[in-house]
């Protein structure tokens, strides 16, 4: 495997700078919470949270691809690791969040008082 003996130091520091920058942006947004972003929704989620999730996935991609060196692996290994996780996590989130939202509705509309 040719990638093994090449030094990647430059790329490592680049990714570190990138991850730090993204984290800084997240923290700044987390402290100020701009009302424009938090007040507007897109598909049931406010824009600020959309940004947080997208930046998180962006960081996750760089950690897996650069730090865990997924980019240097065979595509068969790559897909056999990444695709089950993505599929199962989306499936799990879909089921649990739908159910959670449904139960919220049940509590809200029920004749039984729970929040007192």
């Amino acid at each position, binding site marked *: 495997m040719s990638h093994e003996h090449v030094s990647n130091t430059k790329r490592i520091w680049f990714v570190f700078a990138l991850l730090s920058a993204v984290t800084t942006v997240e923290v700044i947004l987390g402290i100020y919470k701009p009302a424009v972003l938090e007040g507007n929704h897109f598909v049931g989620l406010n824009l600020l949270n959309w940004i947080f999730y997208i930046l998180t996935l962006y960081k996750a991609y760089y950690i897996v691809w650069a730090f865990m060196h997924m980019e240097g692996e065979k595509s068969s290994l790559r897909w056999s690791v990444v695709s089950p996780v993505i599929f199962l996590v989306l499936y799990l*989130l879909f089921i649990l969040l739908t159910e959670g939202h449904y139960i919220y509705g049940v509590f809200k509309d029920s004749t039984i008082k729970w929040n007192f």
Partner: protein
Amino acid sequence: MEATVTTANNNEKTWGGGDDIQPLGASYGKMMMWFFIVSDALTFSGFLAAYGFSRFKFIETWPLADEVFTHFPFLHGVSAPMYYVALMTFILIFSSVTMVLAVDAGHQLKKTKVAIYMFLTIIGGLIFVGSQAWEWKNFIKGEYGAVETAGGSLLQFVDAKGERVALEKFAVKLPEQREALTRSHSTWFMEDAETQASYTVAEVQAGFKAHPELLIRTEQILIENGKKSKKVLTRAESETRLATAKYVVEGANLTRNEYGSKLFADFFFFITGFHGFHVFSGVIINIIIFFNVLLGTYEKRRSYEMVEKVGLYWHFVDLVWVFVFTVFYLV
């Protein structure tokens, strides 16, 4: 069995099917580390999805993170949301960088460099675990205190400006006190199930009555112009609500916490605890590999692949933190 045996003549990269055919192009150990990570990732996803479930269920009453995590070392009484956890995140990212530098040095068979970077990674990991312990300490200790009603709702205290007020600022000391039951002061089988709070409900109620400027803040989240806040009751409503108080809550435990929803503290302890346990075990594994590097085990093997494998685990721990950070502190 040949595939599972790690030998000095670098048979590590082979599998039973022969040297030239490698479907996944990775050694047995590395491949298994990847699939362990897959299963561990799904475990964490299960926890985080369960957190999401509970949060969606109580979406209108969930605690606001920037009111809970406000501490920073040496800044007493200063509300500094996010800063501390941001610092922890940077520490963990940086220890990931030193780890990947160790792996990189291993590819070039530079023993001293690998050892130095491994050492820095271990230090980073220890600082992170220590920081998490400090975070837990603040979370468990609490800051303001609150009361819980008979219905299980949490009531917090604010002044006219909406600023939180701690129990000790207004609660009175009433003469009649029940001493806590302990085995040394009562019949041997009698013991209080919980530690007694500093004040009784009656003391908090009497103090509230004596301070007409105080109001009750409920768990209900209000959104006005894109800003989230908690609903504050009027003085009359506050008095009615406080009359139903049943427990004084200080800090957090697995049963109740002063921040709001009971599940919030449960998930916080469970998920950050499970992550902290991963960091801790990662540090232990790193220490073992560090000593192997020092002893020259991998030098003799002419392969630092073990460093790469623990590196995978270490980066995974960092990866999980990225998600925990978002889900608990940002969203």
